[in-house]
């Protein structure tokens, strides 16, 4: 049976990414939108690791390392923001935060 090629990993990562993108655009709950962003980040991580293996280069994994750290920090801050916005209004959706309306 043929082994999975790098291309197949990349295709799977692309599918995951597209899923995440759709979720960010289509869901209204801020927390779920955040989770979809995490999906996209994971897709990217997968691509990097796949290519690191193909090219026998450790740099790809180092990048993923840093992406993980930054993603963690981002989640912390993002959730802090969401908490401070949604503290008093539990049924808030992304559409209610439309103060940027010009």
């Amino acid at each position, binding site marked *: 049976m*043929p082994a*999975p090629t790098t291309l*197949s*990993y*990349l*295709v*799977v990562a*692309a*599918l*995951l*990414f*597209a*899923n*995440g*993108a*759709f*979720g960010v*655009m*289509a*869901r209204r*709950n801020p*927390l*779920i939108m955040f*989770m*979809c962003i*995490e*999906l996209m980040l*994971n897709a990217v*991580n997968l691509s990097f*690791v*796949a290519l*690191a*293996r*193909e*090219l*026998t*280069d*450790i*740099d*790809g*994994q*180092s990048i*993923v*390392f*840093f992406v993980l*750290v*930054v993603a963690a*920090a981002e*989640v*912390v*801050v993002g*959730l*802090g923001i*969401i*908490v*401070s916005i*949604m503290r008093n209004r*539990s049924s808030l*959706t992304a*559409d209610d935060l439309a103060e940027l309306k010009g």
Partner: protein
Amino acid sequence: MQLVVFVVASAMMLVGAVGVVTRRNPVHAALSLVLTLFGVAVHFVSLEAYFLAAVQVIVYAGAIVVLFLFVIMLLGVDKAEDLRTEPLVAQRWLAGVAALGLLGLLVVAAARGADVLRTRSEGLDTALDGASGDANIQQLARSVFGDYVVAFELTSVLLVVAVVGTVMLARKRAAAEA
């Protein structure tokens, strides 16, 4: 064997992803996310990135998703969201088109840009001494603390900033005025 692992892990990943996007209850969505993350971790193992697989499970699935669940419970948003309506006209269609477009282009790019994607940069060559079991950690450490030590230090600063900032942000207002 490898193919089986690949297919199973991919299935976990994609099912979880679809679940995140389609579940109405946020708690269910968070749990789907855990499924996805596990799938990604399995992929990491099959791609010989053992350290990263471990970190993925510990940090992502273990800390980040737990954080998500904490916030969901804290704010009491575990009520289901009404997915039948979409207030923004044509948003769902546009989102679908955009996602499909992205998918198509990424696949095409990956397929046709093979020669570009296959050129190697100057990083540590994992094939050189990848025999022993600790090889991955050692190489990764050599890379992070060697070539990218400045970035490493900066990420530690970033983490401190993130923590301090979030504590400031999320304080209750009465405490802020005190």
